[in-house]
Structure formats: C-alpha cells, structure tokens
C-alpha cells in the first residue's frame, strides 16, 4: 500500500492524540484522593484517626495544653494579627465547629464551651484534589501530608478545605517563634501549612503531641482500621459526630458530645 508522507504524518499524529487522550481520560476518571494505586475495595491496613471527647475537654476551663504542645513541637508561629495567624489546632465554639448540629435551644451547656478543631485528614480530601503540584497528598496510612518544598503558595487548597483547617504563611514566620525547636523545621513565607497528625512522632512510635499533652485524656488517637484500637472501640460503642458530613469528605476526626 503506497502511503504519502503527509498521510503517514496525519495518521501518526492522530494515534499520538488518541494515546494521550486515553491517559488523560484515565487520570480524570480516577479523580481519587492521591492515594497510591491499591486494589479497589481493599481495606487499608492503617487509617489514623482521632476522637475528641468534648465532655472531658470541657472539664478544665481555659486549658490550652494541646495547642501549646503542638505549637512547640512544630515551630508554629504565634502571630497576634488574626488576619495572618497560623494555627494547627485551636478552639472553636460549638456552633462554628459543628454548625449542622447547632440549634437555638442548645442551652448554656454547649454554647460557650470550646471544641478543638484541626485538620480532619479526610478520606476524600478536596484539598488534595485541587493541588496543582501534588504538594499535598493522602498517604497510605491516611495522613494528608504537606510537602513544603513543592508548595507554590497558590492557596487553592485553602479555598478547597471546607473546614478552614489550613493556614497560609503571609509573612516570614521566624520572628514569631518564641523558642525554636530543632527537631522539626520551621516553614517559610509563601507556603500553606496544617496539622500533620505528628507524622514525625508516629515514625518513632510516639503519640501526637496534642494527645500526649492533654491532662484529661480527651484526645484519643489510633488506627481506626484495627478493630482492637481505642478509637475503633469508641466509634463502635458510642455515637460520634463529624464536621460537615453532608459534603462527603469522610473526615477522620470524630467528636463525642
């Protein structure tokens, strides 16, 4: 079959486009959560999760032990300006943290009490879906991780997070760190940060800093995929709430109210 050069190039170009389209369509359909490819439907071996027992937390008024432990462990800057503040774990009012559960007759019991909020390390994190450089991704063990070397500071993840868990470094954070902790890096201006479930401590078999610091043991941390873990036992025996469940993000931070 005699084929002209022009025709050959046309066919070659079309084939290339078809192959590229197949890859692109494949990627688009797999709008997964940045997980490494695992067998569909296979249960994960590790899924880190946390239970916040608000009743125990309420017991000690004005306590900020978990916040201070986290900030110290991770060189989180203390910026007084609310517009530029950086926070990994903090207190919110009940109606701000769990708005779909608040009602006007809630009673004094709940209204003024603080609820600890942090990154939920969702099973279907919208922040991972939107990051253009994969500077944030979901690890095998469930932690939604940040790579501060790759982050371009576009703040798309901040826009995507339905929980307000992420903070951008509007200014250089170093002047606002009272005591530098050498075992963890600081961040620099222009990148986004959030709670990392103390992945650097988990490597050494330690509990997250906030969990270890809580005097009332109000924070319970563990592997929810392990039926014998504390968190799993709590979740199976008591009723728990999650923040904004209707959005389908499948958060891994559960609240006992």
């Amino acid at each position, binding site marked *: 079959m005699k084929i002209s050069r022009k025709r050959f190039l046309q066919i070659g170009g079309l084939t290339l486009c078809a192959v590229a389209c197949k890859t*692109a369509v494949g*990627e*688009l359909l*797999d*709008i*997964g959560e940045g997980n490494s490819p695992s067998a569909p439907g296979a249960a994960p071996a590790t899924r880190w999760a946390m239970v916040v027992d608000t009743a125990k937390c309420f017991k000690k008024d004005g306590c900020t032990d978990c916040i201070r432990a986290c900030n110290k462990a991770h060189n989180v800057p203390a910026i007084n300006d*609310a*517009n*530029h*503040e*950086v926070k990994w774990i903090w207190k*919110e009012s009940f*109606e*701000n*943290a769990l*708005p779909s559960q608040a009602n006007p007759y809630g009673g004094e019991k709940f209204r003024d009490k603080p609820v600890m*909020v942090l990154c939920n390390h969702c099973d279907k994190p*919208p922040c991972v*879906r*939107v*990051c*253009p*450089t*994969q*500077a944030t991704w979901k690890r095998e063990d469930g932690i939604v991780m940040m790579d501060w070397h*790759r*982050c*371009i*500071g*576009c*703040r*798309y993840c*901040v*826009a*995507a*997070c*339905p*929980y*307000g868990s992420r*903070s*951008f*470094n*509007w*200014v*250089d954070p170093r002047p606002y760190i009272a005591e530098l902790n050498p075992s963890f890096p600081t961040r620099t*201006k*222009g*990148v*986004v940060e959030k709670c990392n479930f103390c992945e650097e401590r988990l490597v050494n078999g330690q509990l997250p800093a906030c969990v270890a610091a809580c005097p009332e043991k109000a924070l319970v941390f563990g592997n929810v995929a392990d039926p014998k873990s504390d968190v799993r036992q709590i979740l199976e025996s008591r009723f728990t709430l999650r923040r*904004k469940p209707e*959005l*389908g*993000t499948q958060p891994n931070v559960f609240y006992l109210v």
Partner: protein
Amino acid sequence: MFMIEKAVVGSRRYWTWVLCLCGVVGVGFLCYLRQLHYGLGITGMSRNVTWGLYIGQFTFLVGVAASAVMVVLPYYLHNHKEFTRMTILGEFLAISAVTMCMLFIFVDMGQPWRIMNVLLYPTPRSMMFWDMVSLSGYLVLNAVIALITLDAERKGIAPARWIKPVILLSIPWAISIHTVTAFLYSGLPGRSFWLTAILAPRFLASAFASGPALLILLCMLLRKLTGYEVGTKAIRSLAVIVTYAMIINVFFLLMELFTSFYSQIPALTEHFQNLYTGLHGEPAPMLVWGRISLALMAIALLLLLAPATRKNEGMLAAACAVTFIGLWVDKGICLVVSGFMPSPLGVMTSYKPTLPEVLISLGVWAIGALMITIFYKITLSVREAAEASTEECVATPITALK
C-alpha cells in the same frame, strides 16, 4: 517578521502615553519587589479571605480574553463581513488579556519561583493545571493567528491555508478557557457561593458582554485618535451581541437569586444577603460593592435594550462603559471575595486591598494596556501602508482565505 519597527515610530502623543504606562508598570514592579521581600501579608488578604484583588482581576480578564470569540465566530464561521476590520483587534485584545491573566496569577503566588512545578508535576485532577494548559494554549493560538494574518496583510497576500483550522480551533478553545476558570470555583464542596452549575454559564455570559463592550470602546477610541474606521455596521453588530449577552447574564443572576431565596437555605442566602440585601444588623462587608454592581448592570441593560440609545454612538459608548465597569465590579471584586464570606467556620471577615496591592494590580493592567497600544499601533501602520500601496480594499487578503 514581528513588525516591531512599526511600534517605535510614533507621534508625541503616542510616546507620552507609552512612557506614562511604563511609569505605572515601574511603580507596580517596585511594589512587587516589596511584596516578594515581605510576603503576601503586604496585601489585604487574610487567613479567611485568601484570594482577593489579584485573582478577581484574573477571573475578570479571562472573560475578556475569551470574548474575542464573539468576533471570530461570526466572521470566520458565518462570513459576517461587517467584522472584517475588527477581527484582528479582538485577537490582539485577547492576547493582552491572557497575558494579564497569567501575570495576575504570578503576582498572587506565595512562591512564584516554583511556578514550573505545575508543569514538572502535572496533576490532571487539579483544575488549576488545566487552567494553565488552556491559558498558555490560547495565548499561543492567538499569537500565531494574529501574527500570520497580519503578516500576510502586510505582504498583500492571503494567509497560509493551514491558519484556517487553527482559527477554528481557537473558537472552542476560547469557550474552554473561561469554563475551566469557572471550574476552579464550581467544584469546591466547602464554598457554597460558588458550588453552582450555573457558575460557568454566568461567567461566559458576563464575559461576552464585558469583552465586546471594551472592544467597542477601543474601536471608538481608535477612530477618534487615528481615524481608523472599523465601520458603523461592525460596531452596531457587536453592540447587539453585548445586549444579548447582558440579558442572559442578568437572567442567570436572577435564577441564582430565586434558588437561594426561595429555598431559604442559609448556605445559599447568606452570600446574596452579604452582597445585595444586607445581613439583618450584622455587618455585610460586600454590601456597597454588590449594590453598585447591581445598579450598574441595571443601567447598562436599560441603555442597551433601547435601540435608540444603542444606535446613538455617544449613548452606546456610555452603555459600554457602564457595562464594562459594572461587570468588572461584579466579577473582579464581588465574585471571588464573596466566596470566602463567611469562612468555613462561619466568620464574616472583611477584605480591603492595600495600596501596594492596588499599585501592583495597576501595574499589570498597564502592561496589558501597553501591549494593546503596541499591537494596535503595528496593525494600524500595516493597514495604512497596505491602503496606501494598493487601490483594492484592504480586506481582500483575509477574504481570499475563504
């Protein structure tokens, strides 16, 4: 080949304008250096309102860039000969607008030197990746189209035949750039103001009203300054397009208002209360801007609807100016910032751009204005030379393409 030599020869008025623009660019650049040094904290953005003036301007200008299709489509697909002398002006407007878009994204980044990461680690599930692909592609497309067609005109011949499919490709591509930009917003589960299927259609409708409105104003300005005549029929034709687009845009807005206020779901109503009706005693940071945009859109619509005002060029200029400014307030200021109010934790944080932020934005606009000035200067010089050297209608080379 790039005909730059035509841009360095000009009247005193031309050079004064160019140098003024360079001054604005210079001031903006100095402010940007300060921003690089201090961080984005120099702007008015905050932990709750993380996108502000820069991304708002980017969103608006993507629309202006896409609107070139409103001239290209009738001319190349439907032989609408009235647009003969206007098409290339629309294409150059698109190039300048897309460049401004990319610059606004660049100045908004926290780590701009890492921008290549978007290409080094392509992430097809992220809409921002596709935005970069589509904007870059659109820039290249329009640059090639404008260059080839203008160069052919200068030589007095028909452009190469392969440019026709490239031009046809630019039509769906123009729609795609603004759709992808809308997708940046309309897929985020936590932002109820943007989580609506009608966002992309709203974007397109307001783009096709504001972009051609600007093009009409630019053509009128060109006629006044240089005597270059695109033709009354062209302007009237484009004015009809602006009118229809404005009608559709307002209609879509009314659809949004119905769904929100009839359903009474707070996640939907609170944004429109913040913008238009007020928040029952609570501070509504966007109320003034929202009402301004409504008023301007209403005035623009009234001016555009009446054929008498549309046919009177002075009134049309006013209508186009009100259209452009009204839609700029709606998309460049209200749309992006309102999405962050309230924050995911229910807090209404107000946003006010700072002086450095405004100066950087003006600097980017000045770069766009500079590009348009230079492109139009080159185009007009080529056309004047062509007219002087041949007695045939200058439009022959392009029509010979058909």
